[in-house]
């Protein structure tokens, strides 16, 4: 590991305008452009400062519990009779998901910038919990926008955020999910931009967010690449991660991007199946998903013929979003990463299988990645290695799963 804790290779994309190839950019109202400039400058300054890295590393080690381990899913691999499945255990990070990596990074940045009022959006509530936790730790005030549909299906996280001292602001507009929570957070930021830091939770939105969130999440891949080699003596044949906005996936993928023999596989939410049109598979259903502009960035967007954003469906709130981080659109175009999907049914099956066979209850989001591993492993030789990002734990999803499967 280098002296600088965050993996930032300055020759990397995005370019100066925030583009990853033809995706990315900054499509937001003028009012917040100066704030994005200020944020970008502050971020560049912070990551050039060893003290910032030291402070973040200290918190990651003593507070988050990094490095998170890699577990060999031995019984599951055995039962499938093919590739060995390894799990990067982001579920063991404090607060139970990878979201804390980004929340602490941006939180330290906010503090450095002298901003005391923090706003965030959340879908599954994991980013909201991560943000509330980081703000409790850093002593900053935290307001979290959350759609009322998500509030209903992620009750434990709503309570957690309140307990952590955050204000949870219900969002009633549109589909009342993550997309609408981001709309409201952006409106808040436009209004209170002088005093407020917008802590965006995934690798999406206007530049510099996709870059910054990726950098803060890249610790996942940096650790995992060393760990998997130490454990297996080889690089993985494939890295698999679920893709909502894309932060846990890009965080895992980034360290492996130059490893040509490692496939990078992103798993989107197939919801009720592609034909049903009720899903969030932005790369799988190109009849209704095309390059477009949502929440400040150019990427694939699920939309009707008239350019109106479509409502999405997934059993997992964290994947229920009509667009996807621009770097994923770029990696797909380069054919460096491959994107597939798992349906609600696939994910629920994987949720139960991993619980029973490995004693790990995965988040429904992460269950999508596990489902893909279960599908692939049997087709691969026994000495091959699949590295799955277990982005979060499933406690938050118990109500949802009980509702579907019964007691």
């Amino acid at each position, binding site marked *: 590991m280098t002296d600088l804790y965050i993996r930032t290779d300055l020759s990397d994309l995005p370019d100066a*305008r925030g583009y990853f190839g033809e995706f990315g*950019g*900054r*499509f*937001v*109202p*003028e*009012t*917040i*452009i*100066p*704030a994005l400039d200020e944020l970008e400058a502050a971020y560049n300054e912070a990551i050039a400062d060893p003290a910032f890295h030291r402070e973040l590393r200290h918190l990651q080690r003593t507070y988050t519990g990094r490095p998170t381990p890699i577990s060999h899913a031995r019984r599951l691999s055995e039962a499938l009779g093919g590739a060995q499945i390894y799990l990067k255990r982001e579920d063991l990070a404090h607060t139970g998901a990878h979201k804390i990596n980004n929340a602490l990074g941006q939180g330290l940045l906010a503090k450095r910038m002298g901003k005391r009022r923090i706003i965030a959006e959340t879908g599954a509530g994991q980013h909201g919990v991560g943000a509330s936790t980081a703000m409790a730790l850093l002593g900053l005030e935290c307001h979290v926008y959350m759609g009322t549909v998500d509030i209903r299906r992620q009750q434990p996280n709503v309570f957690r955020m309140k307990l952590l001292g955050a204000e949870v602001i219900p969002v009633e*507009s*549109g589909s009342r999910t993550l*997309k*609408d929570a981001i*709309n409201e957070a*952006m*409106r808040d930021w*436009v*209004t*209170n*931009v*002088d005093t407020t830091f917008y802590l965006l939770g995934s690798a999406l939105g206007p530049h510099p967010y996709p870059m910054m969130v990726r950098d803060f999440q890249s610790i996942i891949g940096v650790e995992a690449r060393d760990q998997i080699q130490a454990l297996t003596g080889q690089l993985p044949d494939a890295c698999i991660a679920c893709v909502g906005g894309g932060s846990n996936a890009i965080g895992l993928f980034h360290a492996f991007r130059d490893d040509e023999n490692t496939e990078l596989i992103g798993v989107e939410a197939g919801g009720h199946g592609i034909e049903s049109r009720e899903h969030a598979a932005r790369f799988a259903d190109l009849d209704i998903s*095309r*390059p*477009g*502009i*949502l*929440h*400040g960035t150019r990427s694939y*967007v699920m*939309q009707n*013929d*008239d*350019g*109106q*954003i479509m409502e999405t469906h997934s059993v997992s709130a964290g994947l229920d979003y009509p667009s996807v981080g621009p770097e994923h659109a770029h990696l797909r175009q380069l054919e460096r990463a491959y994107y597939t999907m798992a349906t609600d049914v696939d994910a629920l099956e994987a949720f139960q299988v991993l619980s029973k066979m490995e004693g790990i209850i995965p988040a429904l989001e992460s269950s999508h990645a596990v489902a893909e591993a279960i599908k692939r492993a049997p087709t691969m030789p026994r000495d091959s290695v699949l590295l799955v990002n277990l982005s979060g734990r499933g406690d938050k999803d118990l109500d949802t799963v009980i509702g579907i499967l019964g007691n």
Partner: protein
Amino acid sequence: MTRQSQGTAALDAMFARAKKQNRAAFMPYFCIGYPDYDESLCAIEAVAALGVDGFEIGMPFSDPIADGPTIQAATQIALEQGATVRLCLDAVRQLRARGLSQPMLMMSYANPLVAYGADRFVRDARDAGADGLIVPDLPPEEAALFADSCARAGMALIFFLAPTSNDERIEMATANATGFIYVVSLTGITGARKELPAYLTDYIARLRAKTEMPLVLGFGVSSPAHARQLRGLTDGFIVASALIRAWERGFDEMHALARDIFAASQE
């Protein structure tokens, strides 16, 4: 009044006329499809008959991040009424056929225009009789999406400046904009406000020192008193949410507010 020019030329003529009369041009906003298609056209015609200077023609979008609750609700209704990009262009064509002579600026978020095809939209909007484009999530650094086609069609491409814009931003916007600069009155989203901000005079003076482009104020402009206040200060102003809110109390209320604001701008 007959229509003698189109695009930036029509806007230039509009500002010249208002300036000669020593007043700021009044450009009300109406969303096509609110409360339904026919009524939105009737409203625009009725307000045009008052002699107002121009129109911002709203095209609805599902995720309007720069808009407050009033415009969000109105555009949501317009979408439910079936408003589409094509229908908004039809509306402009129909209004021209009925003799409406004032400049019309198409206001849309970027995605519906990109979905329609940016170049094709600019061409079709010009052919329908529109004069320019206002895209609130298109800052000048992303202008390339529309700049060439607007220049070719002679259509105005409007950029915004806000109280947060620094000198560098002001230079970038004024170097790229055609027609006028949309001056956002406050740090925030659209919505009716009781008062115009106290810093307005200094703010406008700061912009005037940097550009000769016409300055049109929007966001929060709501009343005849505001219109009076803007006389001699800005070259034009846009009223949106206040008209929609008046309309919630009835067409006549909306029409009366438009009439009173226009009258106040001439006092």
